[in-house]
């Protein structure tokens, strides 16, 4: 085998070793990015509902229903896709605030997200029924946010 060929083989093999973790990191970062985008969409839709509940903007049944339905749809997304193993703050320090316990204490996080799914589905059913109904349902949604953020989120 000539020297050039040897070098080429060595280079390709080395790239394989280096590239595998890089690809894994990229996939993890993409998943974390998608997860953060989902969180942003939660916050964006809740902000519309919160502004109405607090009287900052006038209540609008159609807009309230739309935002609450978006919230319910977001809560129904399957977290398996955006939350692969290894996307926690122990594995990816500085890149996420999701505690590794979210994965190691399964099914606790599943129960917490089921509570969020239920609270947002309940809110979607009543958000168009008037300001009092909206105010009544939004509290449980807020509590369900805490259901995950209390055990599974690091401080900033």
């Amino acid at each position: 085998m000539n020297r050039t060929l040897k070098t080429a083989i060595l280079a390709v093999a080395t790239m394989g070793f280096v590239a595998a973790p890089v690809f894994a990191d990229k996939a993890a970062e993409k998943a974390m990015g998608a997860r953060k985008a989902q969180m942003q969409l939660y916050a964006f839709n809740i902000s519309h509902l919160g502004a109405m509940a607090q009287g900052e903007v006038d209540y609008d049944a159609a807009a309230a229903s739309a935002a609450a339905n978006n919230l319910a749809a977001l809560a129904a997304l399957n977290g398996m896709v955006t939350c692969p193993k290894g996307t926690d703050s122990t594995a990816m320090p500085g890149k996420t605030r999701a505690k590794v316990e979210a994965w190691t204490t399964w099914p606790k996080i599943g129960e917490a997200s089921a509570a969020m799914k239920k609270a947002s589905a309940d809110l979607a059913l009543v958000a168009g029924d008037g300001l009092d109904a909206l105010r009544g349902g939004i509290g449980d949604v807020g509590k369900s946010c805490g259901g995950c953020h209390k055990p599974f989120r690091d401080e900033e």
Partner: protein
Amino acid sequence: MSKTMIWLLSIAVVCALTFQWVTAPANPPASLGGARNLANGEVVFNIAGCASCHSAPKAEGEEKLLLSGGKRFPTEFGVFIAPNISPDPAQGIGGWNEATFLNAVLNGVSLEGEHYYPAFPYASYARMTASDAADLWAYIQTLPPSSASSQPSEVGFPFSIRRGLGLWKRLHVRTGSIQEIGEADPVLARGRYLVEGPGHCGECHTPRDISGGMVLANWLGGAPSPDGPGRIPALAGPNAKVGEWSVVDIAEYLRSGFTPEYDSAGGAMVDVIENTAKLSDEDRMAIATHLKTL
């Protein structure tokens, strides 16, 4: 016996007596007596967050009123386990009287006359009025009893010698207010009282020195998270995010847990919000108004 020995013995005796004197636990104060205000006792119970630590480990909602204890608090000094403070006469504090309760909450001294570990935040509760503490005692007696027995803390030597905590108290327990501001304004005064005293905000939001005492010079300046990476946010000073929030934003956060950006509270603050959500709008606004002055 040589002269030197006599001198050394005398010094040892003086040291021992001084230690005993300096570290002596406070005696129970006089009982206030009289009719107590149960509604105010409930307010104090909520702002002081009693249920957050003393309810059973997995209690939710109404179950949190059963103060059976059992939650574990791991620290660098050892693991502290919240005791049963339900009104059960045998396992809880039902056999206490108002004076012993006041001594526990305001002075950090047990029924047996021993110092409590400051995992029980008496360094803050010391700023509570005796009247509020007496109302709290009256309210706690209306809660359901639990027959669960309290577990001893898992603390190694030398911290296992409770008497030494007398020194810690000398260093770190102050009853006076920390921020001498706005006392003429009843809203500001109420807010300061709730934040510094029963609300014990400083216990997490103020950094601690090597002996575990709050660094009052950096009051509410933020601190490392005791529970993983990140920091407990500053409430005072240039790094305080709440400085950019309005008074209404802060009050709303204390009610719903939502920040102005509709992010939601996390970690131990979720328990705090559960308690502050039960306060009146006036008290939440008082806390918010005070925090804005820092």
